[in-house]
């Protein structure tokens, strides 16, 4: 009962909620002369039944982290816990973790059904149980009609489904997905995104998903870890990551960004380019003084004419029309540029902007995020 008076406990400190805990893992690859630090003291806790995404540009270490969790790469340093148990030294065939590979890696000499049965056979399940599970899996991914086919005789989207069914069949505690949608065309990819969310919901298995596609990450994930150069920069829900990125890299990698110079003083931010003071909560470790702030393009409003109180004076340098929205490129008084995204509705009327004209920019209150660097 005393608990109630205390602050909310961190859900990640309780191992019963945590599926995978990565504890200060480093991975160093030895080259001929140099060494590459693919993972640099990475720590993260992934909760049960979570759709967790590792997001970052190629070479950021996200696939290496996935391979460490699967057991394909031994970590150079650090420990890995699965449901509280240290599995750092277990070989991949003894980890209750399955992987969907980027190229699917289906066994070409086996039928669709035999591919799905493989993991169950290796676990020593009875014939009857294997048959039932394979049937359930085929049904789950809607592939019953193709069960006798060779994997070379089915389409890419179908191979994707078989790869999913094969990895889900042994009911792993965690499913690892290594950019599984990157080989599919756009339409199929959208369908599979919804399909994956459905599968995760129906099976209740923790999904760890690797992608470099920020839109994919935002639409599918419960939480996202943004990675760069072997480190995790920020972990949070899609909203937190998009609306409150901690660093310039995160903001830049996800969505469109405007970075502006500003002065922070006692919880209020004043832009160098003018305008009113904005209330902002700086991230830990940022002191008063010169700071960088982020404003997303959709939070800027542009009006033709001279700036008045609460607005920033600007010149329209370019107008880019893209159907449902118009992006207005502005030059501010400081010489900084600002992109404002206006919807082409009668209320905002982004399409009426004229290049070269004098304009006034207003920024929505609460839209200013102070960055760490």
């Amino acid at each position, binding site marked *: 009962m005393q608990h109630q008076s205390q602050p909310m406990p961190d859900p990640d400190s309780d191992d019963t909620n945590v599926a995978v805990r990565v504890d200060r893992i480093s991975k160093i690859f030895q080259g001929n002369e140099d060494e590459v630090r693919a993972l640099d003291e990475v720590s993260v806790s992934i909760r049960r039944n979570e759709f967790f995404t590792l997001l970052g540009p190629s070479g950021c270490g996200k696939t290496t982290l996935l391979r460490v969790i699967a057991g394909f790469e031994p970590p150079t340093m650090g420990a890995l816990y699965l449901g509280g148990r240290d599995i750092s030294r277990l070989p991949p065939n003894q980890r209750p973790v*399955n992987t969907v590979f980027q190229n699917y890696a289906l*066994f*070409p000499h086996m039928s669709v059904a035999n591919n799905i049965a*493989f*993991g169950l056979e290796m676990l020593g399940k009875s014939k009857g149980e294997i048959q039932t599970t394979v049937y359930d899996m085929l049904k789950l991914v809607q592939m019953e009609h193709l069960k006798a086919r060779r994997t070379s005789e089915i389409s890419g989207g179908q191979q994707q489904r078989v790869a999913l069914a094969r990895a889900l069949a042994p009911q792993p505690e965690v499913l690892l997905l290594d950019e599984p949608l990157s080989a599919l065309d756009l339409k199929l990819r959208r369908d599979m995104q919804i399909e994956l969310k459905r599968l995760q919901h129906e099976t209740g298995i923790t999904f760890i998903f690797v992608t470099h596609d920020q839109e994919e990450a935002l639409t599918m994930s419960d939480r996202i870890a943004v990675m760069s150069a072997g480190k995790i920069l920020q972990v949070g829900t899609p909203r937190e990551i998009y609306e409150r990125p901690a660093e310039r890299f995160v903001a830049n990698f996800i969505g469109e960004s405007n970075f502006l110079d500003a002065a922070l003083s006692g919880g209020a931010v004043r832009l160098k380019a003018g305008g009113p003071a904005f209330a902002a909560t700086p991230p830990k470790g940022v002191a008063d003084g010169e700071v960088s702030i982020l404003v997303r393009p959709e939070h800027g409003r542009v009006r033709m004419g001279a700036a008045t109180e609460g607005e920033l004076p600007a010149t329209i340098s370019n107008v880019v029309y893209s159907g449902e929205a118009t992006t207005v490129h502005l030059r501010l008084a400081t010489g900084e540029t600002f992109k404002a995204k206006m919807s082409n509705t009668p209320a905002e009327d982004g399409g009426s902007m004229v290049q070269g004209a004098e304009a006034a920019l207003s920024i929505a209150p609460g839209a200013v995020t102070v960055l760490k660097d």
Partner: protein
Amino acid sequence: MSDTVPPRHPARGYSVRSLPGFSIVALFTVATLYAPILILVAYSFNSGTSLAVWEGFSLRWYVQAAQNGEVIDAAIRSLYLALTAAGIATVAATMAALATTRTRRFPGKTMIYALINQPLMVPEIVTAVALLIVFAWIKVATGYTSMIYLIAAHTAFCIPFAYLPIRARLETMDNTLETAARDLYAPPMKVFLRVTLPQIWPGIIAGMMLAFVISMDDVVITEFVKSAGQDTIPTYMLGQLRRVVTPEVNAISTVILAAGAILVSLFFWISRERR
């Protein structure tokens, strides 16, 4: 003649066939390769005893060879030797190919690759003399003489021939398949038996056939290593050359040729089935 058959991969823009003299060079090459063999085969059916004068069609040399105890002995010995050596060499080569393609980079990997292929680089006569000396020591020390020396020698020089196609197959095989099998709870031996082996077996068959043919064909090392009464078909035929040569030699050669052709066709047929 080839004008009537459309090329399977029509060359876009450039074809070597447009080079002057293409047809002449091609015909000359085919003729030098196959004319002597055709003559050899033809004279195996000669009813006379000459290798040069055609006297009429007959199967007498085939009958004679089939009734010649020394030929039968040598043929059985050759087959036994080639099958044993090729079998052992293929197992060793498969293990070597796995060790050089399914491991992380380790110091000396290139060196090991060179060592495996050593029989391809060292002149056969040098190996033959070396083996003669070493085996002579062992024979003196142990007093033991049997086919074991020939089997050991043939296995050694067969290994690189079996190794190369198996290694090539392993290199083209997607090794995420093995990673996937491990991920799906297969212990290492099961990974090999259930995933790697079914993927590389055309390479293994090819390697084994190559090793078999190389062993069947060997003269130099066999001649140096064999003990008395251990003639194989090639060394028997070599011995015959020192006496009167009859078309019996042609008949034996033709049988070997036919067996080889059947073996190779069989291999292509099997690998086509598997795609």
